């Protein structure tokens, strides 16, 4: 019954994200275009063919070709022993993955969304993240937990939470959140090769978006470093940090701000844990203003950590208070207009950047 309900959710969300497949972001017309979905699929494919110890386990990853079609074609290529369809038992199969990782296999556990991972969070934190420490280095856990994170379109409160802040506070975990196809490919390959537990937070709404990829990124040994952020757009007036879908919004906001004479530097965090504090601080020391953008709940969020880090390390360089943009402090509503208000939009980022530059027109800004 749960399966049927989830499949219905999928149907609705798949219908809504299809229009997004047409959205292009072309920086260079010569490079090859690749959707995030294809990037993840190719990364999984290459890592599974290079190392027979890598296997994929999750709900609907096999015969259904993946709940979001990320694992399309993998069952046919690698067989049911390496691409395992599980019953609806998050706690059970996550624990099985951890047990297999103790013994040197390299599982990739897919959660249909990270909301469902709450049923398995005991295993992610207690038996995966803490084991290397508790056993003094004897039990390493080379496991990857991946799946869509954050809000989708109209899926309601229980399917829309962003977990970056929760997992990002836990020692023993590495937490990654890609934005573009190159990020997705490079970071997933790095995560699978990493000897520690990695939580890989994707976003359902950008699965269908296309990005140009360089030929370097298409090489099968391509990896991105864990713990290093990327400066997507250079600027000198205000720094905007974001991860996952919010990077796209921040880039659009930066273009709007450009027209008004504010040059914004957009940082794609890529890695929530370890957080690339040096890049963020270097950028703030250059621009002297900071806006943090995230989709999750505001209290104790990623933005709060970035703000604290900047205040600790670069207080003298700040010319304005740090602006924090986050999702509204409410469980996600269902109605489309309310949902739009509960998630940061491009206008919110523009407004916050202007506030940080002391160039705002005072209007009553809600939430």
């Amino acid at each position: 019954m749960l399966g049927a309900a989830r499949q219905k959710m999928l149907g609705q969300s798949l219908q809504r994200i299809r229009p997004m497949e047409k959205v292009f972001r072309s920086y260079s017309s010569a490079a090859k275009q690749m959707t995030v979905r294809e990037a993840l699929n190719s990364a999984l494919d290459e890592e599974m063919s290079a190392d027979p110890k890598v296997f994929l386990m999750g709900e609907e990853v096999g015969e259904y070709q993946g709940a979001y079609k990320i694992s399309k074609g993998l069952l046919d290529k690698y067989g049911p022993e390496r691409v395992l369809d599980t019953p609806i038992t998050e706690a059970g199969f996550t624990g099985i993955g951890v047990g297999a990782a103790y013994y040197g296999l390299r599982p990739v556990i897919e959660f249909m969304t990270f909301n469902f991972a709450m049923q398995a969070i005991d295993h992610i934190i207690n038996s995966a993240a803490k084991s290397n420490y508790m056993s003094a280095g004897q039990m390493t856990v080379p496991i990857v937990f991946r799946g869509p994170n954050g809000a989708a379109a109209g899926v309601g409160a229980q399917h829309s939470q962003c977990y970056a802040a929760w997992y990002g506070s836990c020692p023993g975990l590495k937490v990654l959140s890609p934005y573009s196809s190159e990020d997705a490919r490079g970071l997933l390959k790095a995560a699978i090769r990493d000897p520690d537990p990695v939580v890989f937070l994707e976003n359902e709404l950008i699965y269908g978006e296309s990005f140009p990829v360089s030929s370097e990124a298409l090489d099968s040994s391509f990896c991105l470093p864990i713990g290093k952020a990327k400066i997507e757009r250079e600027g000198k007036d205000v720094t905007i940090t974001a991860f996952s879908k919010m990077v796209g919004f921040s880039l659009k906001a930066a273009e709007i701000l450009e027209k008004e004479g504010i040059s914004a530097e957009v940082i794609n965090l890529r890695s929530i844990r370890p957080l690339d504090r040096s890049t963020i601080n270097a950028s703030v020391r250059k621009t002297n203003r900071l806006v943090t953008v995230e989709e999750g709940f505001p209290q104790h969020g990623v933005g709060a950590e970035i703000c604290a880090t900047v205040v600790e390390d670069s207080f003298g360089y700040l010319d304005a208070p740090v602006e924090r943009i986050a999702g509204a402090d409410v469980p996600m509503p269902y109605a489309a207009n309310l949902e739009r208000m509960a998630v940061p939009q491009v206008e919110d980022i523009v407004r916050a950047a202007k506030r940080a530059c002391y160039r705002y027109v005072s209007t009553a800004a809600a939430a």
Partner: protein
Amino acid sequence: MCAQMYYRGKMFGFVHLYNGQEAVSTGFIKLLKKEDSVVSTYRDHVHALSKGVPARAVMSELFGKTTGCCRGQGGSMHMFSKEHNLLGGFAFIGEGIPVATGAAFTSKYRREVLKEADCDHVTLAFFGDGTCNNGQFFECLNMAALWKLPIVFVVENNLWAIGMSHLRATSDPQIYKKGPAFGMPGIHVNGMDVLKVRAVAQTAIARARSGEGPTLVECETYRFRGHSLADPDELRDPAEKAHYAARDPITALKKYLIENNLATEVELKAIDKKIEEVVEDAVEFADESPHPTRSQLLENVFADPKGFGIGPDGRYRCEDPKFTEGTAQV
């Protein structure tokens, strides 16, 4: 001895003793090879000792010293040993069952996918009667039977989950009946008699090793002390305790050995004395071992602290021009 050390302040936190249940641990674990694995709960000292972890390492770990099996970082509830394939030591009940199922899964994967033809390692998962009401237990019974994993689920039914009687907590208290519901045999055995436990264990382990799938074994046993050393143990009926104390597995085995002329009184006394010496030696060793150094606090959080991205020369690997040559192996 553990209790004495605890009350003298050398051990701290939660310590859960295994007195009275020794037959289960010995009956099962002594039949295993070194490569087979054992997953346990917080009541894991005896499982560690049976599997071969040296007494000194266990005692030092309990004292929180750096010579312990986990360098003092795990403690009483988290005993791990890679060498002896003891996978812990989990504080949350039910947490060890999926991990054990994963270890069994690895054994099957290695045989079938990685083609290591002689890999027939079996995993034993030990847990209690309280755990048998937990969701993860049922999830793993289902998946182990579904995928025919080489695992034996051993229930140490000591009738009490801290102060909650098994009969008050469970709709159908006969746990072994839950096995056939998932498609595996469920066996009940008297957990106070080590030879009976051993006989059942032999069939279950052989079944798993030959690839026929999992078994659920319910061992009816009893713990003579409270749940942990902090438990005043007031709810249990003294008559019940006396009934089981009369069936102490160690004394029962002693009687059996003497009656059947397999050993004499003198030989058994010598063994007793040797064990006492081992224990005293372990305590002395642990006492004299050093506390962990301050720098040990931040060690062992990650296996690869800098993340995959940084190579041995300190530069990001993707900046190395030779990066795109080479295989996916790190």
